[in-house]
């Protein structure tokens, strides 16, 4: 009786849930890389997630494979507020800063986000974020919601 590896089982589940995407998870030791692409309203969205021990790097590509603007976001003490800063590009364009911020909320980790979604596409931004978060939950990178008892 062959024991099914958890990876294969998870993949089967994903396939059978009528969601079709290119899923590549490569583990080079310390860094896990996950890449996938989806199409939303004739626009191709590409996602690349790099999981480091204490940080997650995410790239969101909208049709092109340009790097785009880079943001760094992290929780800052004392009140656990999230700070976001633009590292590259982003002078007149803040598309993606919001996503970075919310990723920190969901994962509790430092986030570096590179995003080339064009300005003034809030729907696209929202869709991309939704897909990204779905994937992060699936990969187990998000933290459980029930944490602590702060009210």
């Amino acid at each position, binding site marked *: 009786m062959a024991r099914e590896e958890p990876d294969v089982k998870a993949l089967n589940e994903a396939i059978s849930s009528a969601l079709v995407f290119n899923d*590549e998870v490569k583990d080079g030791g310390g*860094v896990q890389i996950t*890449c996938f692409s989806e*199409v939303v309203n004739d626009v191709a969205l590409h996602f690349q997630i790099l999981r480091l021990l204490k940080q997650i790097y995410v790239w969101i590509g909208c049709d092109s*494979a340009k790097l785009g603007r880079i943001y760094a976001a992290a929780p800052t003490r004392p009140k656990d507020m999230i700070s976001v800063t633009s590292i590259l590009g982003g002078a007149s364009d803040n598309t993606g800063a919001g996503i970075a911020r919310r990723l920190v909320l969901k994962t509790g980790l430092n986030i570096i986000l590179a995003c080339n979604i064009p300005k003034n596409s809030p729907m696209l931004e929202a869709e991309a974020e939704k897909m990204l978060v779905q994937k992060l939950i699936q990969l187990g990178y998000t933290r459980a919601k029930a944490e602590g008892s702060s009210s």
Partner: protein
Amino acid sequence: MDSSVPRFPVPYKNLSLDIKGNKTDVVLCSYDDHFLVIATQIGAMGTILHARKEEGVSIEPTFNVSAVFGKRDEPMLLACARQLIQHISISGSSRSLVISLGLKDHSAETLKGVVSAVIENRLW
């Protein structure tokens, strides 16, 4: 009626090596307009530098290297980025480089190790 799912457009490499006894994870990605290099020993991206070639009127290009996140006063990191952008330029590409170095020490030996590992596995 599924529209064909696009192929993921960014080539990348993920490797792990030992530099001076420290396990170093190196990731290289090739975007349309940038190369991304991540070399980490600390489980985080560390200092992020941006290096680009500026083509002027003169025959020889000049390079602009700056730390955009993290430690801004580490000359060895800047030197590392400078070496790599020069290598990119010599190989014929005019793309910029974003390199993040999360290293336990900034000795010349460590950085030489990083540079040679990147060049050996380069995507340009």
